[in-house]
């Protein structure tokens, strides 16, 4: 077939007026992923019984602001990297901002603490499984985001895969927050971040293969 014939074919028929992005279907996919993640958290880990007590503490809200900001920036990164030719120069700064802020909060918390309390602020009681639980909870959301991205047109597949993993990890850390007993910035700024970076790294590895189109 000659290129002119192809052009004639493309410019004829019922699909000349372009279809809209099936936003509703995409929202459904992502919601299913998030709900699965919440379901796993509720059934295997359980909701924190003293959530309300935790919510009285400023540190709790700093933590929530941090994970919500990461989920938001992750979402922006996914959206931007799913369309060809969209500017992404501001993404690194956008993603770094919440991380820098939580690290500043961590430094302040460590400096204000008595020297023998500092180790507890960093290690908490749950450091040995916190990151892996976030990574596990991110899986259903990760799959949903990749599925949606496959229907769009990412052109930088390694970045796009990493963004999918990052957004999924950040969303999972929000889900995990409803179980996790830790609220101190030094703990959150390290162990939560590790949990998010695991799916991010996996995304960067598998992106070129699973997102090809």
């Amino acid at each position: 077939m000659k290129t002119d014939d192809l052009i004639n074919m493309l410019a004829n028929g019922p699909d000349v007026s372009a279809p809209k992005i099936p936003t509703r279907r995409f929202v459904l996919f992502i919601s299913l992923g998030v709900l699965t993640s919440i379901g796993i958290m509720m059934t295997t880990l359980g909701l924190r019984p003293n959530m309300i007590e935790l919510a009285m503490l400023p540190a709790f809200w700093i933590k929530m602001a941090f994970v919500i900001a990461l989920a938001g920036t992750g979402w922006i990164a996914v959206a931007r990297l799913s369309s060809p030719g969209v500017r992404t120069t501001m993404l690194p700064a956008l993603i770094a901002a919440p991380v820098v802020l939580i690290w500043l909060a961590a430094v302040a918390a460590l400096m204000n603490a008595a020297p023998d309390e500092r180790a507890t602020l960093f290690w908490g009681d749950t450091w040995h499984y916190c990151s892996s639980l976030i990574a596990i909870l991110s899986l259903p959301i990760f799959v949903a985001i990749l599925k949606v991205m496959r229907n769009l047109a990412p052109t930088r597949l390694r970045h796009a895969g990493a963004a999918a993993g990052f957004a999924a990890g950040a969303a999972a850390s929000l889900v995990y927050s409803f179980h996790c007993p830790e609220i101190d910035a030094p703990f959150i700024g390290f162990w939560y971040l590790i949990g998010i970076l695991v799916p991010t790294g996996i995304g960067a590895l598998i992106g070129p293969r699973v997102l090809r189109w």
Partner: protein
Amino acid sequence: MQRIPNREQSNGNARNELIELRLHALFLRGLTGDEAAYRDFLQATATHLRAFLRRRLSRWPDEVEDLLQESLLAIHNQRMTYDTSAPLTAWLYAIAKYKLIDWLRRHARREMQNDTLDDKNELFSTTDADANEAQRDLGKLLALLPEQQRAAIMHTKIDGWSVRETAVALKISEALVKVAVHRGLKALAEKLRDKS
């Protein structure tokens, strides 16, 4: 990659601005179903992309037209990912570049494998390339699609039938005809990519 200016950054370049304006206008009219505008858009885009690919593929001149067709099909299939407020030329360039890099990556890998082969195998690999080229004829690839998708594309996009006529002939609903066309073109793009 640096020598081709990214259209996004070409503020002040009057010619590029003009191309952007023209393509953008044609493209938007195409989105609303204007076939003539959409054809003009594809034709103008094709000439730009051909020049771009010819420069990039100077070692593989035979591949230019194939990759051009693959890019045009990709542009058509992914049109909904274009944000109408952003520069269209940046979107087009990103897709063409993506398709080019995707091809180069696969081809470079194959070349590296060929390097280890002896003369006899090279003889076979040349016939391979010929077969590939013949197979990449879109018309022939079209025949490989599932019957319903193939028929829906042929009738509505080549024979000039209406959706209703096609629906009656295929004994499916009009909505399904449109779905079959859309899915068929996506499958066609995949076949084209896998054969190249």
